[in-house]
C-alpha cells in the first residue's frame, strides 16, 4: 500500500507524517505522533476514550481516517491544559475527585470542553446527554458532572482552539 504524506495539526503544532491510508486518526496520534493521552478503548466509536476536538467539535478519533484529518485543527486534552497551566475543567475534575482510574478522563474532559463552548450554562440533564458518548466504568459520572457544572458557574471558559 502506498504511503501518504500528511500534515496533521495537533494542539497548534504541525506534524509531517508518512503513513498508509488505512490508519485512523487515533492510531496516527498514538503510534506515529505519540499523543498517548488519546486513549484506545474500543476502536469503533462506542466508548469515547479517543475523543478529540476536530475544528472545535468533539469526535471519536478512531472513526476518522488520519488522511481525513489533514487541514483540520485537532485538539487533545493536553491542548486544553497541562500540569503547569491546567484548564479550569482539569482543575475541577482533579479537585472534585472526578477521576478514578482516569482512563476515560482525557476523552471526557475534551467532550466537556466542547459542551461548555457550545452551551456555557448546561443543566445537569444536558451535561448527561452531552457526555453520553463517553463511557466510564469506575465513577458513575457523578463527580464529572459536578465538575462541569462547577466550571459552568465560574467565569466564561475560553473557546478551545
Amino acid at each position: 500500500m502506498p504511503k501518504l504524506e500528511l500534515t496533521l495539526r495537533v494542539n497548534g503544532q504541525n506534524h509531517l507524517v508518512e503513513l498508509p491510508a488505512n490508519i485512523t486518526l487515533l492510531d496516527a496520534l498514538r503510534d506515529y505522533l505519540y499523543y498517548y493521552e488519546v486513549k484506545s478503548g474500543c476502536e469503533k466509536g462506542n466508548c469515547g476514550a479517543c475523543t478529540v476536538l476536530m475544528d472545535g467539535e468533539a469526535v471519536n478519533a478512531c472513526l476518522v481516517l488520519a488522511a481525513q484529518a489533514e487541514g483540520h485543527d485537532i485538539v487533545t486534552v493536553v491542548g486544553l491544559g497541562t500540569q503547569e497551566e491546567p484548564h479550569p475543567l482539569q482543575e475541577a475534575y482533579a479537585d472534585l475527585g472526578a477521576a478514578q482510574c482516569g482512563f476515560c478522563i482525557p476523552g471526557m474532559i475534551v467532550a466537556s470542553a466542547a459542551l461548555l463552548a457550545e452551551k456555557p450554562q448546561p443543566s445537569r440533564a444536558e451535561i448527561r446527554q452531552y457526555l453520553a458518548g463517553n463511557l466510564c466504568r469506575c465513577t458513575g459520572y457523578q463527580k464529572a458532572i459536578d465538575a462541569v457544572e462547577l466550571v459552568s458557574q465560574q467565569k466564561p471558559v475560553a473557546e478551545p482552539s
Partner: protein
Amino acid sequence: MLSEFEFQSPATLDDCLELMQFQAPGVAPIAGGTNLVVDLRSGRAKPQTVINLWQLSDLAYIRRENGHLAIGGRTTVTQLLNSSLVRKTGQALTESAQKFASPLIRNRATVGGNLADASPAADLAPPLLVLDAQVQLQSKSGTRTVPLAEFFLGPRQTVRTPAELLAEIRYPVPAANTATTFLKLGQRWEDAISIVSVAASLERDGDICQSVRLALGAVAPIPRRAKQAEAVLAGQKLTDELLRRAAQVAASEDANPIDDVRGSAEYRRWMAEVLVYRALTSLIEEEA
C-alpha cells in the same frame, strides 16, 4: 487494523464523481466514517479505493427551496439537530436526530451516510419516509431521483450503484395542519441502536384523517412504510379504537421482525403496536 485501500480526496463534487466512476465498483465514499470505518476494520468492507467526501462542504446544507426542504448528503446529524428549518417542517426528523447514537457520532455521521448504509435500524429513515422524501443520486453519467420508499432493497443494500453519490435528500414541506413525530425503543436511554422505531405524519381536518404516513424501523429487512396500517386510518374518523386497530395492523401485517441479540421478533411486534399507537395519539394531542 483496517483493510488496505487507496485514498483520494477530491476537491470538488465533479472530481469526486469522476473518481467514483473511474474506480467503480471497488470504490467506497467516506464522509463521517461512523459506519464505514467500523466495516473497514471488521473486514466487512474491502474497497480498493476510498474517496473522501468530508471536504465537500458544499454538500452540507439545509435549505428551503420550491416548497421543499433540501438537505445535502454531507449534512451531519448535529447540523440536522440544530436546524430550525428542519424543526419547523419535519419535527420527526429533529426528534430522530436528538436520539441518534451519541453526540460524538452525531458530529460526524451524515444524512447521506446513514441512508446509504441502509441498516434496517437506520434512525433517519423512518422520519424521511413519512415526509415523502426523495433521494438524489448523482454520478458522472447524470442525476436521478428515487423516492426514499424505493431506495432500500434489503439489509445494507440500496439502489445506489458504486459510482453514485447520495448527494441530496429532499421532502415537500408538509401542509400547515400536519404534525410529525418519531419514537424509538432501545436497550438503554442514550446511544442505543433501535429495537423498534416508528415515525408518523398526520394531517387532520378536525378529527378526520386527511392523510397519514407511518414508517417502521428495525422490524423488517428495510425501513419502510406501514401501508396496511395507513389504509386503516386514511380518510377515517380518528377514534381511539381506530388508532388501536391501526397499531395492531402495523404490528401484525406491516412489521416482519427477526430475533436478534437486542430483542425477539415477538417483543418487536408488541412494541411496534405500542409505539405506533403512542405516536398517533401524541400527534392528535399535540395538534389539539
